[in-house]
């Protein structure tokens, strides 16, 4: 038996290496899984993980899918750093989409440049308001933000479902539960003609950059970091916990709301019964795999996006079930958490002293 020995200092090398170890372990397990469901592992591996990189169109799709993951992931990471666990980004995203949709439908006849900015604003404010509920209940009543933000996800889903079945349904839509298609001026401009990736991707990179600046160069960012790593020291220094909670929820709520706008004003082009296949939850993994660092989040969002796109490609070409994507997501986080062990510990082989039977 070998045993774990605590390192005197956390290993920086392991901190950077553990996401890579986790990704490799996930790929390896993925190949095994392909083998067990009767796929030729190498070919399946190629289709799933390599093929999405081989055409310009699919690279565009990768960036399109990465956009909401970056936006949500960056916001969540800021909170996780300060031990503020916002698990409800999917709800905040949904409300953002609803608010943006309301603006788009209200100004349907108007062809003006300001419709889109107004939608982004409405989405951000909607996400913030939805995020304000868990923040308020945590700071005022000490209620677990994990459970409250999560419950609100289901409330948001039902609200969207009500709206697309009722008040916001397209009157000329043959009773399908969806809104009218948004007008030209309520649709995000494409980055490259022929690809579906749109201006929201630029917004997500700006958000990551701003978050990096916030964490690295502002006092508020420093305060949050200290609160997360050493709550006692933060208390001693007089850093206010409610302020951190509010800041974390407002930032992540706004970004998740904008992610919702990006979906309805982007690839969807309308409100539908569901605007997100769980981006808000996948973003939790994105945040952790990205080491809670804004730039890491961008990289891990692309990796997570690859899981989605690869899953779709494999579904079409190999008839593999789309649920594999969810398994890969979960595995990735398991492996990352397990690999994180080596940041603080190293394995020490059990020494056998001569003459003493082990």
């Amino acid at each position, binding site marked *: 038996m070998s045993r774990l020995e605590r390192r005197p200092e956390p290993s920086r090398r392991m901190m950077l290496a553990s996401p890579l170890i986790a990704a490799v372990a996930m790929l390896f397990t993925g190949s095994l899984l392909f083998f067990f469901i009767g796929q030729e592992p190498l070919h399946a591996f190629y289709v799933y993980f390599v093929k999405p990189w081989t055409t310009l169109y699919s690279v565009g799709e990768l960036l399109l899918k990465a956009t909401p993951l970056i936006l949500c992931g960056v916001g969540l990471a800021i909170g996780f750093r300060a031990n503020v666990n916002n698990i409800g980004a999917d709800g905040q995203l949904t409300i953002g989409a609803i608010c943006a949709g309301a603006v788009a439908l209200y100004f349907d006849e108007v062809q003006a440049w300001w419709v889109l900015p107004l939608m982004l604003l409405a989405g951000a404010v909607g996400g913030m308001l939805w995020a304000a509920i868990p923040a308020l209940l945590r700071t005022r009543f*000490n209620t677990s933000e994990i*459970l409250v933000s999560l419950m609100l996800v289901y409330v948001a889903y*039902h609200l969207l479902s009500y709206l697309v079945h009722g008040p916001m349904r397209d009157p000329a839509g043959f009773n399908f539960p969806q809104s009218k298609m948004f007008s030209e001026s309520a649709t995000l401009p494409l980055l490259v003609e022929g690809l579906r990736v749109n201006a929201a991707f630029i917004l997500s990179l700006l958000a990551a950059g701003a978050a990096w600046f916030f964490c690295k160069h502002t006092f508020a960012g420093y305060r949050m970091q200290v609160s997360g790593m050493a709550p006692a020291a933060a208390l001693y220094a007089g850093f206010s916990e409610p302020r951190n909670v509010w800041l974390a929820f407002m930032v992540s709520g706004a970004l998740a709301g904008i992610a919702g706008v990006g979906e309805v004003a982007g690839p969807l082009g309308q409100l539908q019964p569901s605007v997100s296949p769980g981006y808000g939850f996948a973003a939790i993994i994105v945040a952790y795999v990205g080491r809670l660092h804004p730039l890491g989040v961008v990289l891990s969002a692309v990796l997570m996006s690859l899981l989605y796109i690869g899953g779709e490609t494999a579904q079409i070409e190999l008839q593999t*079930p789309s649920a*594999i994507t969810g398994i890969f997501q*979960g595995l990735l986080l398991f492996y990352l958490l*397990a690999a994180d062990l080596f940041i603080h510990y190293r394995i020490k082989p059990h020494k056998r002293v001569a003459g003493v039977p082990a």
Partner: protein
Amino acid sequence: MMTTELLIAFLASTAGAATPLVVASMGELVTERSGVLNLGMEGMMLIGAVVGFGVTLGTGSMIVGLLAAAAAGMLMSLIFGFLVLTLQTNQVATGLALTLFGIGASAFIGQGFVGQTVAPMPHLHFPLLSEIPFIGPLLFRFDAMVYASVALVVAIGWMLARTRLGLIIRAVGESPHSAHAIGFPVIGLRYGTVLFGGALAGLGGAYLSLALTPMWVEGMTAGRGWIALAQVVFATWKPRGVLVGAYLFGGVTMLQFHGQGMGLAIPSEFLSMLPYLATIVVLVIICRNPQTILLNKPMSLGQNFKPD
């Protein structure tokens, strides 16, 4: 106006909606009493639901299906236990990972079962008792799990309060360091409570796919795993509180099915929101007094312990 028949139907269906919450929450309650917070309930319940359904479909035996669901829940919680107890990972993050994994894995396992049905768990019929007007249909016509879940609450309540094992579990939850110093196997005991919690979460999930709606639908727990977690807080970590809470929530859940009959002119989506909103409201009421939580919450909840 509400007729007696409607009232009976409403109250009786409440027990059905409450039972999976009772079973799953009792598992989590024992786990949390030993100081471990497993946020993977939703994932474990989903795996229990799909495995219980699939095995019952394959073997034709509901007993085997239930056992398999419990085993599957335990296997899931073993992953959690290994990461948290042996590898010392963060409990919150690991629990979330377990839920996300469970959502994906249950959808993967369950693709072949979509659209199939099994015969629902049979309702018991007691001679004479079930025939009593009003009382009979209200108390003596449920399936076995409803009665078993109430017995479970009594048994676990007794175990925690009156037995040596219960004392050790509580001691480990309050202060793993003291418990370790006295010589109790903290990690081993926590493995036990985590596995027990997983087994009950699996059973609670299987009740959904075998009794409540006898079929498999992707994501069919619809947040019940999270509500089960909230139930433990609501109950302030006391078994009888779980029973009260679960029946309260069962009633709220059933409003959406009986709402129209009761003359509630509210769109069904708003009635569907009620259980989640009720969870939030109840959490606020319980948590607003920090003393209540502080006095009852296991002191080491969520904190890892590593014997050195």
